[in-house]
């Protein structure tokens, strides 16, 4: 058994946490080896060590049988190790070629030889079937082409061991398929692939071996063909996991949110939302799915009031809120759990208690005549902490920055649910959270649904959409191209709609007015 890479008894500490605890990983040549674990399990750290971005505090690494010290990415590259990062490391206003040759530029004297660089890029891209436009700027090309550029960066440097860090997070089901094919082709050409992921389906589809990490420790290494998804999930989480939230059938009532012929411009000045119409009723969850960048962001911003619209109407109950301020909309019963909890949902430098009152800090009992009532603020925070089980180091006085991602999200959910809005816009509510937190949040969404709220769930995770929604709308290129019952559709069908290949409008339910 010849291993091309061995990571033996690797330990790595960061301040306050042991990210890798005595992990041993052995990779066979010409295989696809998956590294499975939840967020924070330590997989990215381990691979960063292999790529030379970090140094291990303990243990050793062997490449092709020889012990090596990978002190920086240059050394990793010279050993034939390359990494496709989860968050692409591409310079947005450089061309494809410039990004690929950065650090290894072919040159004639002092000048970069861009011509020969472009030729080599074209050569490699043809050899491995990775179509790119060498002269295009990164900011102008699609996400999946950007990913191909990341792969080409490695192949340009003759990498033989390719590490893929969560590569499918930004792709449609069809593009994921294509990526799997590219991976198989790379292995045929003699490469070895390390796949970091938490998506069990993909592991089953393409990997040969899977190593599972949990909280920094090695749980085990299993052959993929002989292990089912349930077993892998159990290894990943440490207990039996239910993938589906328990829910009874929806009992939809009157229409609470209606969007008519909405047109919204995006940051580039083009129409991000085109002539869009949508309806959400009380007591149902309408899931909105689509590839990132097809208008979801602009739609949410238009509904919540962050962006001005070009034309159209947005009815909350029977009031057109399209031109009202954010404050007016929230006062009328619109709730919003934003996409990026740290950027939009919380003021990280405020305490937990201060964050809870961000919508109504100026109202009684929190303030009187413009002066804050610290006691009332504290009592409110303690109540919410109890009710929603929000955990933090110092209770209401904890700076939000010091809380874990899951608890930060719980705090936002608590704050928004407590205000009891009639219509809830929930965007990417479980991004970056572990399975336990995901379960909790899905349960609360269903609970709100059952209390008669109308919920618009916007998410890039198809599994989440399919699991939690009652009806599903698909957005493509700023338009709704399909509305289907969640129970009646398949991932494949949704994927086709998301990439614009299929349109399927379910007959809209009759609006029921009070």
């Amino acid at each position: 058994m010849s291993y091309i890479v061995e990571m033996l008894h690797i330990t790595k500490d960061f301040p306050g946490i042991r990210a890798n605890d005595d992990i041993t990983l052995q990779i066979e040549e010409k295989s696809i080896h998956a590294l499975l674990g939840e967020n924070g399990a330590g997989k990215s750290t381990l691979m960063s060590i292999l790529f030379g971005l970090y140094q291990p505090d303990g243990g050793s690494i062997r490449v092709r049988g020889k012990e090596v010290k990978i002190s920086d990415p240059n050394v990793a590259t010279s050993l034939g190790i390359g990494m496709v990062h989860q968050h692409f490391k591409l310079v947005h206003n450089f061309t494809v070629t410039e990004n690929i040759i950065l650090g290894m530029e072919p040159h004639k004297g002092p000048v970069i030889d861009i011509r020969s660089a472009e030729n080599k890029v074209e050569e490699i891209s043809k050899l491995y079937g990775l179509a790119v436009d060498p002269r295009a700027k990164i900011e102008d090309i699609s996400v999946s082409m950007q990913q191909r550029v990341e792969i080409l960066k490695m192949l340009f440097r003759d990498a033989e061991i390719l590490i893929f860090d969560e590569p499918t997070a930004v792709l449609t089901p069809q593009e994921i398929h294509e990526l799997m094919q590219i991976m198989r082709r790379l292995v045929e050409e003699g490469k070895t692939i390390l796949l970091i992921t938490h998506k069990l389906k993909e592991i089953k589809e393409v990997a040969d071996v899977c190593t599972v990490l949990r909280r920094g420790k090695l749980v085990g290494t299993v052959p993929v063909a002989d292990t089912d998804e349930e077993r892998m999930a159990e290894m990943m989480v440490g207990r039996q996991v239910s993938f589906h939230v328990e829910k009874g059938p929806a009992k939809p009532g009157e229409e609470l949110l209606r969007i008519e012929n909405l047109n919204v411009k995006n940051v580039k000045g083009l129409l991000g939302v085109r002539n869009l119409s949508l309806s959400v009723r009380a007591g149902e969850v309408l899931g909105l799915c689509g590839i990132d960048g097809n208008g979801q962001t602009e739609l949410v911003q238009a509904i919540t009031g962050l962006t001005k619209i070009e034309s159209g109407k947005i009815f909350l109950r029977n009031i057109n809120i399209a031109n009202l301020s954010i404050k007016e909309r929230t006062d009328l019963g619109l709730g919003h759990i934003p996409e990026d909890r740290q950027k939009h949902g919380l003021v990280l430098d405020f305490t937990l208690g201060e964050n809870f009152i961000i919508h109504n800090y100026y109202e009684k009992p929190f303030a009187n005549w413009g002066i804050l009532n610290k006691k009332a603020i504290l009592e409110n925070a303690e109540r919410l902490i109890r009710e929603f089980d929000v955990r933090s180091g110092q209770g209401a006085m904890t700076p939000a920055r010091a809380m874990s991602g899951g608890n930060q999200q719980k705090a936002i959910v608590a704050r928004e649910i407590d205000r009891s809005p009639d219509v809830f816009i929930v965007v990417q509510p479980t991004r970056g959270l572990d399975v336990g937190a995901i379960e909790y949040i899905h349960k609360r969404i269903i609970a709100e649904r059952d209390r008669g709220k109308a919920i618009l769930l916007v998410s890039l995770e198809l599994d989440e959409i399919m699991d939690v929604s009652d009806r599903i709308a698909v957005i493509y290129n700023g338009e709704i191209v399909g509305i289907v019952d969640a129970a009646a559709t398949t991932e494949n069908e949704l994927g086709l709609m998301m990439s614009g290949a299929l349109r399927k409008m379910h007959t809209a339910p009759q609006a029921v007015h009070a």
Partner: protein
Amino acid sequence: MTTRREKIVLPLIAVLLGFVLGSLIVALTGRSPLAMYAAIVKGFSGIDILNGQPLNSRYIGEFIIQAMPIILTGLSFAFASRTGLFSIGAEGQLMIGSLSATTVALLVRAPTVIHLPLVLLAAILGGALWGAIPGFLKARYNVHEVVVTIMMNYIALHFNNFVILNIFGSVDRVKTAPFPATALLKSPFLESITRNSRLNWGFIPVILALLIFAFIINKTTFGYSLRAVGYNKEAARYAGMKVNRNIIASMAIAGAFAGLAGAVITVGTFNFGRVIQSAEGYGFDGIAVALVGGNEAFGILLAGMLFGGLKAAQPLMQSQGIPREIAGIIQASIVLFVAMKFGIKMVLDKFERKQAPTTEGDRV
């Protein structure tokens, strides 16, 4: 190191390092650091350790009047800073405040009980206006406030001189006619108990300003929203706060503090309007005071007194053969060291033991 302790220890280390650096420069250029420290002690208190002279209240009075305007410009920078803005415009806002005070002092006839408050009010409003302009440009057009406020400082300087020379007229091209007594903060009483220093009632507005600063920032809904916008503009916007309005309000209030400083100088220390040759440095002094004071009212009070004493000691240093600029060098070094706080913190943390690993469920 806890954040509480950080707030006190780090500025102290910076102050220490600044003085060490200053002493080094003095020694390297052949002058006596001891003479420098003696001058500083004398500047604060009148006590002359080299010649054995005792406490002299005149020096105390003089050091207080040096501290007063820079406490105010310190509040100006700190207020903007707490709300996420970097305002270097206190120098210009002070000049406009001073000009406004001069205008009301010379043009209005009224008894003291009306005249003086009007003078102060004019200064506050003038400074607020001068601060609101860059605030508006930032809020509406996203023009970075740093270069704009610096440009406004130069514009204020020349504008002030233009008005003084051409509108109010000046015999010697340096100062205007003296102000009527009803416009002044001056106090014969205070002068008499401090052996004819220039100590005046200005310290009352200064103390009020400190209290108002602390009150607004920490206890009011207004302060809450300003802080929210300063910490995270986007989240504040998502919560429905009016971000632009807050930015302008914040810069205006910062300008108001600086404008008041202009009044304290013009109708307190002096009693006439002045033609200004070049920026006198109150703005930057304020930055030093705010940074060392941790942007908190009490810290600003202490830091203001420290740097005020340093300023008062300058002529004493000069007479000992030590170029007075050493005070500015020390001050700038202190600010530099405070700015490097992350770096200093890194070094300090290396000396402290590592914390025990905590359990971690998930990380963002």
